[in-house]
């Protein structure tokens, strides 16, 4: 099972190893839940020769800490380093207040590594599981993230998303001129690499549902145009070249269509492009700004931003009937909606007392909740497990990425070591 999962991961990882493990974004946790679960990931044994390129147990600890739900025990505080469940002395860990201990053994394999790891419940005095994850020679980080996913799910019941990735826009100055890049990185910010560099602005990256492609808007032709690009092969295709705005591409859940915004009729309208037949269908007819479409998980309707009521608010368009219903009423600026994977929650950019924040809205009750308190918060993108979202904000005049849980309890920043970063897009699961 795990092996099968890793096959998919292998393909993706192969494309991203070129720059090695040098991270360009560094995690900086700013808030977690009040009572995180103490867990100890005991340093793993390694039966091969030489030193491993990555600290696998350290990566697992960092993943669990970043979730905000766990408080990993520092290595220095551990009384022993058990390598298997038999070596776990329950009394020692109980003294530390540790609820779970992870032990593990890494062995060399013909084409890489095999990690065997165990999860032990200290207070229940029992082993919860022993599992194995294998990966290629450049996939030690993938192996670690996979193990973290398994541990996270076994304890919380929520599927882990540590093996996912993100795409974001980085702007820096090269030779006195602004330069723009689409970047792809692990969700912890590690292994950042350039997908493509541009001399004109690039914006609105969006993953295809299978995680193999990205759609985005580039100004390289002198006006905004929508492109799709294969992340593994680098092959790309320009999808639109209409007069005016070509923006906000977003894939339908089944990956066969792309909703987008075109202003060729005089003002911005929502269109749907069938990627097989190449047919464009106009979905909105209104003299106001209609933009920022996002699909509901069932693919039957779109949510979008419109100022048809005078101010930007979120509306829902039922595709079969063309009916448009207003969803947000709280505040005078709600824009760029994203729908949670279960279809129950809307995440929006919300202006409250003149400050732009990220807010959630329960679609059934209409109840709104502000999640962030940083400045100029925008571009929220939800994790495939619906637990957290990544967004863009400003700190010290610099664009940085940040994350917050959908219940607002957990927060961390991912500042860039170079340039401004913005518009994070959280990947889907790769399997």
């Amino acid at each position, binding site marked *: 099972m795990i092996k099968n999962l890793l096959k998919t991961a292998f393909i993706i990882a192969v494309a991203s190893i070129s720059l090695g493990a040098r991270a360009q974004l560094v995690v900086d946790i700013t808030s977690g839940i009040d009572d995180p679960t103490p867990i100890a990931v005991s340093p793993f044994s390694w039966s091969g020769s030489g030193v491993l390129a990555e600290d696998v147990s350290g990566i697992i600890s960092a993943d669990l800490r970043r979730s905000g739900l766990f408080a990993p025990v520092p290595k220095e505080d551990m009384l022993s380093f058990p390598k298997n469940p038999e070596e776990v002395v329950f009394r020692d860990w109980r003294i530390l207040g540790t609820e779970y201990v992870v032990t593990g053994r890494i062995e060399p394999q013909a084409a890489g590594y095999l990690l065997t790891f165990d999860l032990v419940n200290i207070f229940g005095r029992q082993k919860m599981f022993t599992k194995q994850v294998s990966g290629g020679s450049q996939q030690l980080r993938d192996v670690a993230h996979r193990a973290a996913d398994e541990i996270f799910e076994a304890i919380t019941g929520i599927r882990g998303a540590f093996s996912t990735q993100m795409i974001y826009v980085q702007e820096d100055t090269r030779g006195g001129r602004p330069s723009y890049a689409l970047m792809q990185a692990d969700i912890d910010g590690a292994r950042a690499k350039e997908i493509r560099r541009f001399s004109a602005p690039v*914006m609105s990256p969006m993953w295809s549902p299978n995680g193999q492609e990205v759609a985005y808007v580039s*100004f390289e032709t002198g006006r905004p145009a929508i492109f799709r690009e294969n992340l593994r092969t680098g092959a790309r295709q320009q999808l639109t070249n209409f007069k005016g705005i070509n923006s906000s591409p977003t894939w339908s859940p089944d990956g066969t269509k792309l909703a987008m915004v075109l*202003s060729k009729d005089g003002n911005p309208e929502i269109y749907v492009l069938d990627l097989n037949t190449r047919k464009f269908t106009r979905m909105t007819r209104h003299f106001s700004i209609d933009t920022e479409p996002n699909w509901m998980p069932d693919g039957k309707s779109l949510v979008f931003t419109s100022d048809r009521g005078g101010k*930007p608010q979120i509306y829902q368009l039922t595709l079969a009937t063309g009916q448009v219903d207003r969803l947000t009423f709280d505040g005078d600026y709600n824009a*760029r909606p994203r729908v949670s994977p279960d279809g129950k929650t809307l995440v929006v950019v919300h*202006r409250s007392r003149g400050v732009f924040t990220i807010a959630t809205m329960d679609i059934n009750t209409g109840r709104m909740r502000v999640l962030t308190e940083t400045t100029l918060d*925008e*571009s929220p993108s939800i994790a495939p497990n619906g637990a957290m979202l990544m967004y863009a904000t400003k700190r010290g*005049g610099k664009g940085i990425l940040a994350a917050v849980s959908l219940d607002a309890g957990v927060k961390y920043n991912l500042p860039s070591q170079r340039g401004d970063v913005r518009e994070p897009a959280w990947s889907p699961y790769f399997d």
Partner: protein
Amino acid sequence: MLKSVKTGLGLACVMAVMAGCSSTDTDDSAQQQMTQVQEPVIDTPAQETAVPLDNVVYFDFDQSLLKPDTRELLIQHADRMRGNAGTVRLEGHADELGTREYNLALGERRANAVRDFLVLQGVDASTLEVISYGEERPAQNGSSESARQMNRRVVIN
């Protein structure tokens, strides 16, 4: 609407005269410029000596309404554009507040407002090209109100 355009024209004349005073060719060039509309001239000395017009107009937050002083400036631009065959690019921009895709639309709405006004002044619509950069190409970096004011703009190129 019409009334304000007339006032604008009057002001434009005064300003053109004033501009003429400060250049080497006095009233003459300014007047030529005003009456030049009818005849398509290839060699246009009056335009060559004319003081370059400010080519950026500014807007209020989340607004695409032209301010009164913007109208005056655009009337002067229209005077120079009429009968000129070259294409003019109207680049719409927004400040950093609000979402990027919405700001792309807002930048276009601003550039369209400038285009529509110029067309009302007799400029051939087919010579005007609108493009929006949203908030992607700020004139000034930073989050101060003065920087934001400078970024809510349409550039006439």
